[in-house]
């Protein structure tokens, strides 16, 4: 089909740990699904079933050990993301695909404003405009103005998570991977985030996310993929 953006075939992630002694285990095996352009796809399942590992494989933070991820890139055409040249992966990451990690993981000493503006500057948007848009995005996510100049590492859990989301959605990526983006948010913030995600979907982005909140899953997803725990 033409509107498949991501085709996951027979995917396996095996970890081989050598410390303190060699140990092998599987995060998941034999995962198959298609992702269509413009849909909201949720992944659900118990903790430790490999949901985050799957998302990390899709973003290439984890090396896949078997199978393929065919991704339709606007720049490179259909590519196997698991084998794609590193340089091209980086290019796709800064122009097409974004990822919201479970925990904010940023370099210290950089202000929230600059962190959020960074993906725009990377896309050659002039600094002034990028900063303005970052301000807007942070305000929209209810981050108090007096925190803009501080590093998010000093923020509360919920604020950190919102900065994390702001960074990922500000540049309207065509594919967005979300790893429990609303886990540490109160109801009000969750609502705002939900609204942002729905707007992104309407504008044509494809979203794939891990959520624990059943109600939220039902409200926003088109399809749910259920993970079982590896035995």
């Amino acid at each position: 089909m033409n509107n498949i953006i991501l085709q996951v075939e027979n995917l396996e992630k095996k970890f081989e740990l050598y410390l303190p002694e060699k140990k092998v285990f599987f995060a998941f095996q034999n995962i198959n699904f298609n992702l269509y352009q413009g849909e909201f796809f949720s992944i659900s399942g118990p903790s430790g079933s490999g949901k985050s590992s799957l998302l990390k494989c899709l973003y290439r933070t984890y090396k896949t050990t078997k199978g393929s991820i065919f991704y339709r890139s606007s720049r490179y055409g259909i590519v196997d993301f698991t084998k794609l040249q590193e340089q091209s992966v980086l290019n796709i990451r800064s122009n097409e695909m974004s990822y919201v990690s479970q925990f904010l993981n940023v370099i210290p000493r950089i202000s929230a404003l600059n962190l959020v503006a960074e993906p725009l500057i990377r896309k050659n948007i002039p600094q002034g405009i990028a900063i303005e848009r970052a301000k807007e995005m942070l305000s929209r996510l209810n981050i108090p103005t007096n925190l803009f100049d501080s590093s998010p590492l000093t923020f509360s859990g919920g604020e950190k998570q919102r900065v994390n989301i702001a960074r990922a959605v500000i540049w309207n990526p065509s594919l967005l991977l979300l790893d429990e983006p609303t886990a540490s948010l109160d109801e009000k913030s969750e609502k705002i985030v939900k609204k942002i995600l729905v707007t992104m979907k309407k504008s044509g982005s494809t979203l794939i996310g891990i959520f624990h909140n059943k109600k939220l899953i039902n409200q926003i997803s088109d399809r749910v993929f259920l993970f079982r725990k590896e035995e």
Partner: protein
Amino acid sequence: MSTIKPLLSVRNLTKRFGPGCEDCESLTGPTQNRNQCPTCKTILGCGEVSFDLYPNEVLGIVGESGSGKTTLLRALHFDFEVTSGEMFFSYLSENNELTDLIKQIQDVNLFTTTNYVKRKVRNFLTGIIYQNPLMGINLNISAGGNIAEKMLMAEWRNLQTIRNRSKYLFQKTEMPLERIDQSPKDFSGGMQQRVQISKALASNPVLLFLDEVTTGLDLSVQAGVLDLIRNIQREFRFSMIVISHDFGVIRLLTERCMVMKNGKVIEHGLTDQILEDPVHPYTQLLVSSQL
């Protein structure tokens, strides 16, 4: 499918210190866990290293002391002759003064070219920042003089331009301008490192080599120097090769990195992948040894 041409291509770079013998290849390297050949006592500096570096890209090289990181970097900076290997530089510039040089080095293996060309590539296109500032700067001349030296080597001839650029870089590296005519002898370690950075950047290099630039500095100065390098790289968009044994530095500065052990590259990948999903046992050990 659009592909960008790499700025620097290195293929099978090998450097051995010593006569070498037929056992060298099989008796050294990470699988043998040694870099001295037991037969002829030759040391393997680095072996069969290949990689591409793209414009505006920062590549990290990590590994323990003696893994061959610095040998690799020095080889790329033509500090010594290599045993074997190829190095290609392809660069497009609007700068007319460089046109001849760029034509001259097109599709030429720089390791086998004349010393004259090597020197030109080194002075015009690259810069290096050593771990020890004393290797990069001369304590007997002023800080400004040190920065000017790099421009003179790149055949800048207008003294006013040189002076202005030295001042500009001094400010860029957050140094007090009134100390530009002092000898770096009287500077702190962090300041000396900043002078070295200014010097390396002076002739607008397109490729910068960084060799453990923050080792030996205290933590707050380390952070300052790293932030400075990071900001300058983003502003001027040159390519960098960063060597460190510290994954913190690698995480801060690079998007791609290679892990070396006993002279060989044992793993390479996206920096976040190397840090979160290290595959080689030695990389796992390195990552887990972080403080």
